[in-house]
Structures are given as structure tokens and as C-alpha cells.
């Protein structure tokens, strides 16, 4: 049986709602961002004996309003983090030694809701961001140290809520995977649509490739499953209509749609694990469901509507500066 085993619970130290959490590509650092305008960096403590938990290592200050999302660049490019927020800013941070500094800042016309670095396989340091005015911004790092920007205006009327880079190996144009990598983006927004964009290699433009119409309300998140094996590819989308839809493209004919689940409350965030075999859904105000790909079917593992409250009561006593190691009760659940 599959199960989720809580290893530790800590106080993030954020004084407001945490909007995003992201492991880096090593799984050793964690970035969080919040309405308190801060980005916090945590280190995962790998000490086997003390259990696994987080220790706070840095606060990144630079946003002037809520920080909506963060994204780690592939470490090939150093320790680089991008963030976006309601203050209309996109900030790119880099760690040198123990110091974090801002290496790039861009102020858009409207709040920037989502941000995502391109996967390693594309071979370029690129990031995509979606804004409330419906624009998708694609920033790519140039050899001369500048950032070039492409805009997809009016990508989603009333706002882009989510961007996710495509499976670089997916190449439905000739039905054959893997010969070249193709830069694609999936995006979702306030027009209830999921759209697929493909970079035109010749002029760097981003024409719309597909339009996935199936939600009846705002699309809150999209996630593209990266895989190296299948001819087909999968995109999931979560919407205000409480549905999570699974879009599959077989590499030849086109996109098909399935309902993963209709939740009791709005599913807000989707996250695949690095292999794409697990899909986490954060829904409602505090709930999480993890699905696993079990022979082509997504089966839920466990739903955890906050069980150990008493544990938290313990946590809440701590202040922002102290980080409890969490309970060790979790460690003994399994073995």
C-alpha cells in the first residue's frame, strides 16, 4: 500500500499565507514565498538520526507586495531563483557563497501571477511568467549577460494564472520523440482555457499550438508531466470549477481529456514529482491529495486534512526565529 508519512512539521516563519513552496533540483534546498513579501530559503537537514526537517538559512527581500511564486533554475546555471509577485515584479536572485543578490528585476504592467524556469533539457536559461493582464513573458538569458524578452500578449484574457514548461522530448509534429528538443509552454488562466504554445525556432515567436477547452472556470494551475519514455505526453490542469483534468496527447492525433477528480473545494496547485509518477494536488484551504500513476491510472494515495492538530499547537508556540525539528513520531510509523 502506498502511504504518506509525515516526517516533520515546522513553522515557516512567514507572517502571512505561504503561496508557494519549491524544492530545488537537488531536493536539498527549499524556497517559500508569502504575502508577507518575503522569500525564505530553507535547507533540508539530512541527518538520518535527527530525522529530516528544514532549517531556515536566508530571507530574500525585494518584493513590495505578496510574492506569488518561485522557481529554481537548473543548477547548471548556479543557484538561481526567480520570483514574481503582486508588485508586478519579476526578480531573479542568485546565491554567491552565502549571499543572495538580485541579478535581474523587471517590472511588468500588471501583477505577475506565475513563474517557471525552463527544464534543463532545453539547454538554455529561460523562464516564463504569466501576468494578470493576460500576457505571458518569456525571458531568456543572452550570452552578453542580458535578458531578452518575448511576450505573448493576450494569452489568456483577464489573466494568466499558471505556466508550465513542456516536456522537451515531446514532439508530435512528426510523431517521433526525442530527436530534437522543442520548447513548449502550457498555460492556464482566467479565460478557463489551457493553451499550449510552441516556440518557433526561426524567429523565437511563440504561436499558439493547441487550445484545451474543458474547464468552466478559471484555470488555477497547469503542470506538464516530463517523461523520457512515452510517446504520449500529459498535462494536468486544476480549475476553480473544482476539477482537475488530465490532457493526454498520444504524439499523433491530438489532445484528449479526462477528469482526474472533482474536488470538494478548489484545487489550487499541482505538482509532479521529478519522474512524473506522482502528482500532488493542493486543494481547499489546507488539503493535499497525492495521486500515483498506477499502470496508467492515477490513484489517490492519502488525503491529509490536517490530522495532528495537537502537534501544531506545539509548533505555534515557537516564534519565527526558532524552528522545531518537528515530531519524531512520524519516523516510527513505518518501521
Amino acid at each position, binding site marked *: 500500500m502506498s502511504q504518506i508519512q509525515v516526517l516533520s512539521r515546522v513553522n515557516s516563519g512567514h507572517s502571512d499565507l*505561504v503561496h508557494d513552496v519549491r524544492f530545488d533540483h537537488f531536493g536539498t534546498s527549499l524556497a517559500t514565498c508569502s504575502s508577507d513579501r518575503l522569500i525564505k530559503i530553507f535547507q533540508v537537514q539530512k541527518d538520518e538520526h535527527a530525522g529530516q526537517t528544514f532549517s531556515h538559512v536566508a530571507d530574500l527581500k525585494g518584493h513590495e507586495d505578496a510574492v506569488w511564486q518561485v522557481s529554481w533554475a537548473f543548477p547548471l546555471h548556479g543557484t538561481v531563483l526567480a520570483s514574481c509577485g503582486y508588485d508586478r515584479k519579476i526578480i531573479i536572485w542568485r546565491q554567491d557563497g552565502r549571499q543572495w543578490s538580485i541579478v535581474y528585476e523587471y517590472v511588468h504592467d500588471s501583477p505577475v501571477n506565475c513563474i517557471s524556469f525552463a527544464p534543463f533539457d532545453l539547454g538554455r536559461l529561460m523562464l516564463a511568467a504569466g501576468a494578470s*493582464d493576460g*500576457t505571458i513573458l518569456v525571458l531568456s538569458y543572452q550570452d552578453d549577460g542580458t535578458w531578452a524578452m518575448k511576450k505573448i500578449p493576450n494569452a489568456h484574457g483577464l489573466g494568466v494564472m499558471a505556466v508550465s514548461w513542456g516536456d522537451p522530448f515531446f514532439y508530435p509534429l512528426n510523431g517521433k520523440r526525442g530527436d530534437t528538443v522543442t520548447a513548449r509552454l502550457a498555460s492556464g488562466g482566467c479565460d478557463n482555457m489551457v493553451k499550449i504554445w510552441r516556440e518557433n525556432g526561426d524567429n523565437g515567436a511563440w504561436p499558439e499550438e493547441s487550445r484545451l477547452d474543458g474547464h468552466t472556470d478559471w484555470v488555477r494551475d497547469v503542470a506538464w508531466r516530463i517523461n523520457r519514455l512515452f510517446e504520449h505526453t500529459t498535462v494536468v490542469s486544476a480549475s476553480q470549477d473544482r476539477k482537475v483534468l488530465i490532457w493526454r496527447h498520444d504524439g499523433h492525433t491530438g489532445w484528449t481529456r479526462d477528469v482526474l477528480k472533482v474536488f470538494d473545494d478548489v484545487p489550487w496547485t499541482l505538482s509532479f514529482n521529478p519522474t512524473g509518477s506522482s502528482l500532488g494536488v493542493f486543494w481547499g484551504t489546507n488539503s493535499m491529495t497525492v495521486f500515483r500513476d498506477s499502470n496508467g491510472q492515477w490513484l489517490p494515495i492519502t488525503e491529509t486534512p490536517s490530522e495532528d492538530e495537537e502537534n501544531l499547537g506545539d509548533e505555534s508556540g515557537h516564534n519565527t526565529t526558532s524552528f522545531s525539528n518537528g515530531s519524531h513520531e512520524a519516523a516510527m510509523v513505518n518501521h
Partner: protein
Amino acid sequence: MAVSTIHRTASVAWSPLNHNTVLLAAGTAAHQVDASFSTSSSLEIFEFNPGHLQADLPLRGSVTCKERVYKLVWSPHSSADDNTSHGGILIAGIENGVVLYSADAVLSQNQSAAEIKRLQSHTGAVHALDLSSLMPNLVASGSSESEINIYDLNRADVIPSGPKSYPLDEVTSVSWNRKIGHIYASSFSNRCVLWDLRKGDSIMKLQDSSTRTRYRAIEWNPDIATQLALASDDDHYPCVQIWDLRNASSALKTLEGHTRGILSVGWCPHDSSFLISAAKDGLVYGWNVAEEQRPEVVYALPQSKGWPFEVSWSPRIPSVFAVSSSDNQVKICDILGGAVQPDKANTAAPSNLEESFPGMQIGLSFQNATPQPSRTSQNIRKAPKWLRRPGALSFSLDGKLVRSFSEQEVAGLELSSVSSSKDRQFVEDAYFLDQCLGQDTLLQYCELQAEHCSTDQQKLEWEYVKAFYDSDPLFTAKRLLGMVISASSSTDPDSRSSSANLNGATGVANGLLRIPKGNDAEGAVANALVLGDVTAAVNLCLTGGREAEGLCLSLIGSEAAISPSFVNAREIFFASRGADLSKIIHSLLRQDAQSLLNLADSTQWREIALLFANYFPPAHFRPLIYQLSQTVESSSDRTLCAILSGNLETLAAICLETISSTSPSSSLFASLHHAVQKVLVLSRGVFGRQPAFFGKNSVRLLTEYCLHLAAHGESALALRFANLDSSNSLLWLKKQLQSTLPPASHRPLSNKLSHPSVPSPFEKRPNLVPTPAQNQYGNSYGGMQPTYNSAFPALKPVPQASGSYPGVVPPPIQNTATQPTFYQPLGPPPSPMSAQAFQNPHLPTSFPSYPPRSPSTNLAGSMHNRPEYQQGPPASPFVPSTAAVAPPPPTSGQYYDPTVQSTATAQPGFQDISPRVPSYQYQKPATGWNDPPSLSSLQNRRSTLSQDSPSAVAPAPISQPFPQLAAGTPIPIGTAIIGPPPPTANSDPSLVRQHSGVMANMMPNGTIPAYQHNGTTLSFPPLHSSATSNEVSSMSSPVQQTPAAEKPPIPSEYLPLSEGFAALFERTKARVSAQMDSYSMRRVEDVSKKLENLNDCLRHGKLSSTSLSGLSQTLQCVQNGDYGTGLQCHAALTTQCSFLEVGSFLPAIKILLQLAQRYG
């Protein structure tokens, strides 16, 4: 910012939530007249599609109506008697009552059916009209004379609302409470009256005696049941008051900012901290009315010319509201900016106006007189609730999951691990594969797999893979190919006589298309040919009337001796022959593989493959099979071809296709594992212990495999697999995996792995080791195929005598001459682990027994020795897959922790294997796997070469590029140097001993932190500005960490050690150079670099006392001339010390010792 416009002066209503498309109904507003003085009125429905925003909303349907509308609401209700109206009911407040329209009828432009009901229930104009959001069948309407009616759409009847409120006054507005269904409020110019529908009476009256207000609009707080907003349209005191009924004596807060009377308020249903107001000053303000804050304007629309008399939030789209104004516009606005098309908006408007008012001059229109700023940043200054994601979650590489949670005002993080017992089999299989790779028990692995296969095809595939581990792969391949063709041929591995095969085969050949088969003479000849029995074929030809062919055939293989005239005659003869058999014979005679390939019926690929095997140079076999595989169609046959040709990439590609095309219902893990194990086992068969270079497809497979393992929390295992590839394509994966490992401590395996289900596989296979008979095949075929591998450029055969291998070498190595690739000097005897485990059960046998010979090709090594990393893996010795598993523990004390020991020895299947493998039974006590072969084990070899005995100075002939030179020239230099060691080398052993004792005492702890620091700070080059793909190469390109110039002196207590090894090195170098053995010279060069690592470690005091004393002992033995003991000491070092600590130089020392031994 307005995103769309309707060019009407109209009262609007949004479609209810149950509509999937967002519609907006607009009824021509009463009390307004446009420039044309038209009195017509209409009810229209527009569509607002966020996916396709248009400057002008597209009209979806309209009907004309008799009266103009004061107020419009849209109920989702479908009346009981009229099931057709799914679109709901539009309720319009008119001059003396309300009218019910069917939205469906409006949409279908059905004029006659549009009006459902007309209630002339009021005496005055119905300005006040509201629909209960909780009970959408209840409509409240109010007009002059304090008239308030509640109409129930269900019962199609009016509910008495109770006594009129006195003094009689016009009801300016009504509003249903959004939280409590039976409460509603009504506003009069100077008071607000609250009603309870259940009581049928008013329950409360709000009145502001202190100020002069004239209430015009009322709106309940969408979240807080006791709060409502009252707007005053008094030009002297334009304000919005927020009242809380819990303290109804005065307003809670007052929103002041408009300069003229307020006409309408809208409380945002999706974020109650946000309220908009529209006033006669032409302004629409958005207010932050969050509880704890002072109200402030956070949003403003550009001023409009006409009065904005109505605002209404879209119930569905949180950021969107509509503003109706008297200047002939209904604007749809998005408070977050939305997507605006200002150009279109400005150009489309006039033309539309023209249409609406034919004959009118456009100049009369006023709405475009002052173009609005196309895009101002008009975002609401406070982040709205609907943008605030309540949380998120993220997976790490190693199967951990983090999510945010908020409880009791605490923003927390929860770390958990996701595990699935269902996938344990996957992990266990991987462990088993890894173990077999590490122990080189792959022959047995193949046998086991073949035995447990579900299908014949898979079994066959494993047989083919196994062929690479047989003494003579080509022979085994022939046997396998022949086995299928001749059904009666024995499967007994001993049946190697081709004539036996022939005898069995001739009878049962079945008809095939190209290569003749059958019971007739032609078929018999073909069969004999295919099976490689030339004599039989010639005989059959001669007796069967094919004398010419027979004679030609009899000369096959002696092409060089044939006179040109004969060749000419032969060509002429065969040119006249059209039969398939003759063509085939012709091709064989001419060594014309291409025509065979072209001719090939791909279903007969086996026969063709056999022809290739039998009549073409062995070196060409695999390339030819590769070409053949391109023509084969069936995927199963292609797999066999790919295996046969040893082409990993093709195999991986086919596996990928298979995985990709399999139905999703089959287990991904199972098929992934099947694919990977085949590719890896084959790669080991093809490349041996050489570093394997995987192509794109194999890398894809391996990457996926490793990621899945990591996701199961098996990063260490995944890293071992990733390290099998020595190209740079997996560099980052390795780094990622490495970083997930706990620093410098090795994972207890047995905790993670539950053993029982791992079979102790080899018990069922008693015949694990190649039989003598197989060895004989090796002999008989070995000699004639010296260039077997030469067609594969990736392999660079290292010339070296096979004799340097002990008898336990795995099968592939036994075929000495055919696969020179496998021979490296000082190559690792396989299966050290099992050997050790068997002999020395008390020694921990897991990772520490796998010290890599050279740190250069594994990741851990690359941290120290990055310069080595890229430097030509083909030439550098291969590191066993297990080497970089996990760095051994930092301190020896930890290492000898009994728990560690027990976990280490408890590897599944492990104990079962070793006793059953006879060849693993070393006579010698435990040695490192890379120790030189012991004499006793060498005796098992069919040939022992001179270099293995310490007395022999001359290396084996094959290992020498210039054997004659080496053997024949005693070389004066050599004799000069092979003398007593240089004085420096004679550094006093007692001194060393003394020092080592001192060192052991002196360095209790100091080394450990430094060392751990080394382990944890896995430094990646800081990424500077030019972050492009060439970073990858720079990553792995030589980076010398410490410039030589700045090296501090070695502490005096370590000097003897450093100097001792330096002396040994110099001595050995001199002798090796005297031998002119270029390969050994290269190794010596290598050693010199690594010795510098030792010096560095000494300089920085990084070595633990164990290492130091071990090194001293080793040096001492060597200085005494006892290389055997020295090597033993060295071997002990490899097991006792952390690899991270000593890995940078220990292998070099070993090479040094061995070289010194050989040449000393």
C-alpha cells in the same frame, strides 16, 4: 480598466452561476433618453467570453419590450410550469410593477414567449429590486409609498412582506442578506429598514441622525452577515457608510471621497475587503474596506462623462464588474488589468454608434471625445483574495514531499515521504541487478532472467545477451541462431559440432523464400552452408549436380591463393546462374555482404546472420548484424539483432518504443526495469569493465530509471547506476543524486530493503561457472578471431597479457584473444565481494570493499580530481559500478560499528551465491578486488604468463607494442637503474614506524571535521554570467583547485611518508621507462599526479590516523622489498579508510606498488 463595452444605456444583470458561459442581460434603462429621443426599449443578452475578449460584447439575443427597465435581476430559477427555461428568469423592475422574462426566449429571439408574467404590483417605479442569493426564487421589489413586495417564483405568488414602513417614502433599494436567507434590507432616503421574512415584519431600523444622508443604495457584506453598506446620493454629503448591526447606533466606517452623490455600490462577492462605488461625479472608486484597516481608495476608473448609475460584480469572474452609465455605455471592467485592446475599442465604437443611430452625425457622440489612456496600471493596490493561493506543494528528487499549511495563524511547512509498497519489487530488482553488476555475476543473472521469463521471446533475448558472457560469444551466437533454424538441433550447450547440427538440420528444413530450404538437394546445400559446414555443402553440391558451385565453394576462404583467371571464370559462371542458391554462394565467394543484405528476406535474418558468422571475418560480424537489423521488421527480431550486434543504442531505442507503445495498463516499473537490465547487462557484455558510453536512447532509459529509483528514496543505488555511464550526459543527474545522499555516511541498505522476496537465485543453477568444455570453445575459436572488437571504435583495446587475470575472471574474459578490450593491466578480479564475504565473513563487505581503482571516473573522485574526469575514459580504468555508491564512512571508528557491519553483510542473495561458485574460492585471505592475482588462483588458468610471477621481468608479449624490442634488448639503461634503490628510498623504516605512531596519537579528531567538510560542500562552480550550455563542459573540464605554486610545505611529521612514496615512484618510473612499456609509462604519469593528491592531503592534515599508519606500513613493507605484504596493507587500507579520504591517491599507490613489483 474596461475590457469590453456595450453601447447602451441599460440596466444590466449577470447570468447566474449555473451558466457555463458568462452572459450579461441589458434592459434599456428608464429615465434615460438618448439623442434620438427614441422611446423603444429592448431586452438584450450579450456574451462575455474571457477566452475571446472583444471590445464590443457580441449580442446573443434580444427582444423588444414594452417598458423601459429601472432595475434588472437574473434568477437561475426555472419555473415549475415551464421546464424549458433553463436559462433562468430575467426580472425587470418597471414603472408600476415587475415583469418576468424567459432568458431562453430572449436568447432565441422568441418575442412572443419572452414575457412570462407581468405583475402590476406597485404604484410607482420599481427602482428597488433584488434576488436572494441563498433562495434564488425570492425576489424583493420596492417602489414608492413604502411598497415592498416579495415574489416567490416557485409559487408564482406574492408573499406579504408585512406592514409598510412609515413615514411612507420611496424605497430606493432592497438587498437580501448573503448569509441569512430570510433577512433583507430596504433603504429609504433617510433610513434603512431591516426585515425578517419569517416574522413578516421589520426587525431593525438604521438611521444616521448626525449627518444629512439620502440613502440611495444598499448592499450586504458578502462574508459578514451583520454588515451592510449604505450609499448616500446627497451631493453635499456623498459617502458610503458601513454599518454593523452588532452596533447599530452609528456607522462603523464611512467612505468619503466622491464629490457628488453616490448612485450605486457593489460589494465584491469574492473578496469582501473590496467594495466599489459609483457616483454622479462620474467616478468609480474601489475601496479597501478590510476590517482592521482605514478605508482607502485602492482603485479608480477613469472619469466618465455620464453618470455611472449602476455597478454589478460578476458572480463568476472575481475580478470583473459592469458599470452602466448614462453616456450610452455599459463597461465591463477588470480590476486587475485584464487584456485590453484599446485600439480596437476606440475604432470600433464610432462605427457601432453609426449603426445604432443611422442618420446621426458621429460628431454628436461624446463618449470618444477624450480618448482614455490606453493602459494605465490600474491594478487594485491590495492583492485580492482570489489571487492568494492558499498553499502549494513540491516534490524533491528523492521522494520527499513538502507542502505548506496554515493552522492557528501559523504558516507551516510539512515534510513527508511518499512510499508505496507496491513498488518495492522494482527497487529490489534494481538492487539485485546492481549487486550482480558489482559482482560480475552477470552470466548467472542472464541465466536467471532467461529462466524466469514469461515469454519465449524474452527468454531468447536473455540467451542472446548471455552469449556475450560465454567464452566465445560468436560461437554461442551461431549456436543460438542455428538452434532456431534447425529445430532438432540439440540445446545441449556441449553440442558444438557443426556437423552434428547439420545432421539434425538437413531433414527438417522448411521452405523459405530466399535461402532455399527444403528436403530437396538445394535446400540441403543451403542448410549446410548456413550452418557453416562447407564440406557437407561441397559434397552435397557435387553429388547433387552442382559440380561447379561445389568446386568453387570448396575454395572458399582461400581467396588469396586463387588465380585471377579462376576468379574470372567463376564470375562468368555465376553470372549465368539465376537460382537463389547460386546467388548466395556467389555472394559468399566474393565476400559480398552487401548483396546478401540486399537480397535478404528479413524474415530469414537468422540464416543470413549465420552466413555472416560463418563466412565473413569475425570482426565484421557485429557491424553486419547491425546493418541487417535495419532491415528486420518484426520488433522482436530487431531486438535479437540489436543484442547480437551488441548495439546498445538500437536495443535501447527498441526498448523505448516498446515501453512507449505498451498499453498503459502494464506496469511502467516492470517494463522500465526489463529494458534497463537488458541494456546494462549487454553493455557490460560488450564493454566489459571498460567505461561504457551510452547513446541518447540509453541515456534516456538510464536517466528515467535512476530518477525513479531516487524517487523511491534510493539515491545511492541510482547513483551507482548513473555511474555506469561515463559520458557527460549524466553528469548532472549524478550531481543531483549525489547531493541527496547524506554527507559522508553510507546508507544502511538493509533498512531500506526488505529481503525475503529477493530470491537466492543461483541455487537453482548449479552450473554457474563455465564448464571446461566451454573453455575449450574459447580456445578453439579464440585464436582465429583476433580483431573481434575492432569494428567498434568506442573500444580501445588495451594490449595486455591475459595472464594477469586470476582464474575467477568472468566468462567473457576467458576468451582471451577475441576480446582484448577486457584486458587491462591490474584489472579488477571480479566478484571481490563474494570472495571476501566467503573468506572473511567478519569483514564488512558492502561498499568499502569496492574502492574504485581510480577516482577519476566516478563522481566522488571527480570532486577531488576533477581534472581527471574527462581525460579519456577509454584509457582510464573503469570503476566498478558500486564504487561511488556512497562514500564510505568518514571515520574508521564509525565504520566498524557492528550495526553497520551486520547491515552490510546482509545483502540479499549474497551469502547464497558465493559458496556455490567454485571459482570464487580464493586460496588467499581477503584481498581487495584490485589486488594482483594470487598465485594459487592463477594456477587455475590455462595459461599463466611470466609477468605474474614476481621473478619474471619481461612482460607478456602481447602487452607490448614492440615485443621484440622489449624482450630482445636488455637495454643498458635498464640494468643501470635496476640496482639498489636510490638512497632516498632507503629512508629508515624505523623512522617511519616511529612517525606513524606519533601520527596515530597526534590526530585523534582533527581530521574528521575537515574531511566531513569536504564531503558536504559539494561545490558546483558558481555560475557566472555566461550561462550557456557550454557550462557543462567547463564543469567537467580540468579545474585545478590548488595552484601548485602556493602549496605550503608538508608538515615535517609526514615528510617521511611523502618522501618515501616519492622515492618509490622515482625508482619505479626509472625502471618502467627502461622497459619502454608505453602503457605502463602512461600509468606512471598518472601515478605522479595522484601522488600529489597524497601530498596535498598530508599538507592539510586531512588523513586520519588509520590511513596514515596504513600508509606507513605499506611504505615500510615496500621499502623492505616485500611487495606482497605491502599490497596487503594497501588492501586493508582500502577497506578501512573512507574512500573520500583516501580515494584520490590510494589507487595510484596501488598501481605504483604493482608496477614496482613487476619491474622491481
